[in-house]
């Protein structure tokens, strides 16, 4: 009976039509993974009773759980495969998205912003905007976030299913339904608690499954120097192994970008916008058991983030050394050649034998599921607390008991998953939707950072200033995006050079929309009446007493570890300059 069942699974999970063929050990590893995450969800359902349990994991998480879940929710499979492919396409420049595009912002979140998020006892980032700027700013932020999060989840779902079809030969419907229903079950049962515990498990699996590829790869090519020599041999006219020295001009590097775009657009605006205001990641930190844990969690996350290039960027670079000749997706579809978009699974197939290959594929599935669970838990929280609750209150004029919101959170999880599945099928039939959804998401990140940071650091910012600044920044971002679509020459105006390429567009659009948001917020605030300082306690620097850490030993202070991570970050920039 059991052997018949396993034979059926083997046929289903190991078809012969993909680039990779899985054996019995690989299939067994994948099946055990699904059983484990469902088991954890079922086990934790008994601990999920109140709204705080379901939406914020009871606010009892240790710094390690919060920190690893924080980084794992970001480490989706598309993040893994996408940046490995970018490393093949652009070389080591892709590392900027892990280093300057993440580390300073994560440390800033920990040291500067976390106290206000945590002390205000908000459930969400839009919830903070409600406390600081009022209902209008909260609603604008909540609706845009909920909509975009759920659509992005569907886009990612389809992309993952497509990769599984190409790599292993899995049917697209099978991938979409099995993985999303698994996420649905464990999130609906255990809420954020279950999502976070599974994210920690998934984080370990991602490293266990992906770490061996760069290790064996480096052994094959003779270490870092051997790899660089081979890349120069394969691509004598390009520089793929220097992080900063090729960023003097747009024409000097394969990405078509200049250092100002990387430093100010990516390193300041996009990175700070994502890591400090995207509720998908911030929610994990809000679940910490105390302020010190909440501050330490992003620092722990940043330390691990700094080394993710080892399992993502390095396989892409090794691909340049040992598998030259891979082409872009369009060319691959036309010629039947292999695409660099699949470089990470291709490298897994190159080095990983029986069992290890299943572990590698499980790492990709785990990455996808942690990213999706991140989207769904953030969506259900924002929907329940920031959209449904105020509307319900406005209609009925009364509060309802906590259990009502937990029920709503579970329903939001279920509906969110099905909307994501619907989006995935929509994308399947109209691929261009994917580009639009991804662009839409980027519209809100940079202005939101402008609004939140002014709200936290400037007492004089008013409710009207916050709302109009956010709206103006978002609309200007949409306007610039549409301008470039209608007239591609506009890119040279936005980026400041006719040599700028598409990758530079996001950086400079983010920078401009942030500046517009900040300018409008300041101007409108100066002409409107600010809140009395008594109402800003716990929300704004200068009005809030931040608990001192002076009594703690040095090694227990978050600022000590943030400094240590920052020093390592600087050293890495110098080494790979």
């Amino acid at each position, binding site marked *: 009976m059991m052997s018949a069942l396993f034979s059926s699974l083997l046929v289903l999970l190991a078809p012969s039509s993909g680039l990779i063929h899985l*054996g*019995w*050990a690989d299939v*067994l*590893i994948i099946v*055990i*993974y699904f059983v*484990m995450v469902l088991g*954890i969800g079922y*086990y*934790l359902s008994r*601990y999920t009773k109140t709204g705080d349990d379901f939406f914020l994991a*009871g606010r*009892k*998480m*240790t*710094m*390690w*759980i919060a920190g690893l879940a924080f980084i794992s929710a970001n480490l989706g499979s598309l993040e893994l495969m996408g940046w490995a492919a970018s490393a093949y396409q652009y070389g080591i420049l892709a590392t900027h998205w892990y280093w300057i595009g993440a580390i300073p912002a994560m440390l800033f979140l920990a040291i500067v912003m976390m106290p206000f998020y945590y002390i205000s006892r908000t459930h969400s980032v839009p919830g903070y905007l409600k406390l600081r700027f009022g209902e209008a700013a909260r609603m604008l932020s909540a609706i845009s976030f909920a909509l975009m999060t759920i659509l992005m989840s569907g886009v990612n779902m389809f992309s993952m299913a497509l990769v599984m079809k190409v790599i292993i030969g899995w049917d697209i419907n099978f991938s979409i339904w099995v993985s999303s229903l698994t996420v649905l079950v464990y999130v609906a049962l255990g809420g954020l*608690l279950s999502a976070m*515990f599974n994210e*920690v*498990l998934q984080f*370990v*699996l991602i490293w*266990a499954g992906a770490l*061996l590829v760069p290790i*064996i790869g480096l*052994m*094959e090519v003779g270490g870092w120097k051997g790899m660089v020599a081979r890349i120069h041999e394969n691509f004598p006219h390009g520089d793929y192994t220097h992080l900063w020295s090729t960023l003097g001009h747009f024409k000097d590097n394969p990405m078509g970008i200049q250092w100002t775009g990387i430093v100010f657009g990516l390193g300041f605006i996009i990175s700070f916008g994502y890591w400090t205001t995207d509720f998908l990641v911030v929610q994990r930190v809000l679940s910490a*058991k105390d302020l010190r844990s909440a501050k330490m969690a992003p620092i722990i996350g940043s330390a691990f983030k700094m080394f993710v290039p080892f399992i993502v960027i390095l396989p892409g670079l090794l691909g340049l050394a*040992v598998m030259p000749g891979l082409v872009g997706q369009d060319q691959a579809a036309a010629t039947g050649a292999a695409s660099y978009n699949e470089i990470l699974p291709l490298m897994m*197939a*190159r*080095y*990983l*034998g*029986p*069992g*290890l290959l299943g*572990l590698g594929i499980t790492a990709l599935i785990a990455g996808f599921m942690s990213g999706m669970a991140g989207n769904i838990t953030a969506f259900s929280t924002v929907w329940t607390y920031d959209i449904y609750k105020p509307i319900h209150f406005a209609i009925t004029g009364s509060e309802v008991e906590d259990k009502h919101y937990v029920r709503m959170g579970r329903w939001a999880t279920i509906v969110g998953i099905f909307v994501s599945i619907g989006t995935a099928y929509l994308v399947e039939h109209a691929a261009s939707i994917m580009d639009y959804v991804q662009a839409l998401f980027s519209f809100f990140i940079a202005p939101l950072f402008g609004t939140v940071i002014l709200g936290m650091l400037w007492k004089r910012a008013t409710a009207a200033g916050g709302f109009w600044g956010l709206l103006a920044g978002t609309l200007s971002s949409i306007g610039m995006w549409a301008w470039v679509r209608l007239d591609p020459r506009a890119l040279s105006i936005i980026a400041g050079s006719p040599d700028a390429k598409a990758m530079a567009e996001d950086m400079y659009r983010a920078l401009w929309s942030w500046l517009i948001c900040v300018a409008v917020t300041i101007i409108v605030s100066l002409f409107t009446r600010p809140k009395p300082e008594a109402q800003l306690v716990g929300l704004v620097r200068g009005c809030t007493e931040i608990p001192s850490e002076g009594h703690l030993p040095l090694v227990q202070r978050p600022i000590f570890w943030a400094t240590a991570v920052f020093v390592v970050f600087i050293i890495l920039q110098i080494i790979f300059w």
Partner: protein
Amino acid sequence: MHEDHGISIWFFIGSLLVVYGLIIVIASLPALFSAAAAPHVVMAHLHAGLWWGALMLLLGIFYVVSFWPDKKDHPKHQQ
């Protein structure tokens, strides 16, 4: 994992590492005794599955023992 939530997440992770380590070691053993059973991968002579599987197994045993549910004093991993 916080103590309120019963079995530690590190116990679950340890258990999974033990099971995975065993499966990978068993699946990699034939290649050690027969060249014909070697997987068709680059650097197959390293027998990466064996030592990686063994490493996972050892790490898994460490976590399972350290975070066994009945143990009263779990290591202070959450400091």
